């Protein structure tokens, strides 16, 4: 058990309605590595990188349909352990930004809505150190997969950077 950070720098979310398939590289998703794996999300950070005013209606939500065949992370996305001396888990959580078929956000599955302006805006949410936090279980819908994506009820989303700190166990 050790905290990990899933980072994705310089990406542009796309407005996607609930229960519609999320396009590749427009989301950051976490999925349990096995049917029994648990993980907890501890922190979400987003920093705007857009060159002009644009509001991103970001939501962190569970999925009603999970992705099929998630792709391995490629730059500028990465997933690293925070403590360099921590031992690796036998089963790792799958972090991904693309898949053969993208996931679909659960309509009533919003865990957090974090609307912000990507022209200089910053968002950070962190859970209490005494709280288990947002929990994922397994690798099936609805508990096993969740993502940070753009719902965008307003305007066009802008370029941003983000990280999600989580702990698999």
């Amino acid at each position, binding site marked *: 058990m050790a905290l990990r950070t899933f980072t994705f720098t310089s990406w542009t979310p796309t407005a996607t309605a609930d229960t519609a398939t999320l396009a590749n590289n427009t989301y950051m998703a976490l999925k349990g590595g096995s049917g*029994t794996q648990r993980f907890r999300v501890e922190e979400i950070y987003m920093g*705007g990188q857009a060159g002009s005013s644009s509001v991103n209606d970001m939501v962190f939500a569970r999925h009603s349909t999970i992705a099929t065949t998630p792709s391995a992370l490629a730059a500028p996305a990465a997933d690293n352990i925070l403590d360099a001396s921590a031992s690796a888990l036998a089963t790792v959580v799958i972090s991904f930004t693309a898949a053969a078929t993208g996931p679909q956000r659960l309509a009533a599955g919003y865990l957090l809505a974090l609307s912000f*302006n990507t022209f200089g805006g910053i968002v950070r949410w962190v*859970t*209490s150190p005494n709280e288990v*936090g*947002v929990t994922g279980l397994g690798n099936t819908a609805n508990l096993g997969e969740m993502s940070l994506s753009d719902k965008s009820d307003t305007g066009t989303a802008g370029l941003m950077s983000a990280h999600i700190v989580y702990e698999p166990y």
Partner: protein
Amino acid sequence: MNSNAKSLRRYEGYLLIDHSVSPGTSEVPEGRKMETPTFICSHCNSICIIHMPRTVALSYCPKCDHQICRACDAIRAMSGGECRSFEKLIDQLSTVNPPSHLIGA
């Protein structure tokens, strides 16, 4: 006075939306910064923002001793006070325990 009494504030998280150098949004306008505590609903696991100043009492489930969101509080009231703890549900579905420092926190 019981010095070992624990406050529910130990479960509070933190949310920052900083538009101090940004055109902002309607919720957090240009030049403003919002810092607010949050809590995770013990029943549905969603993250709830606590509006400041604290003028309204937060919903609470005495059975799991956690704050819950208003929707879950309504369900709790309609069910006669039933506790539908998300953590208990997860524990029933899983054989894996959370990190030891979080058990009984």
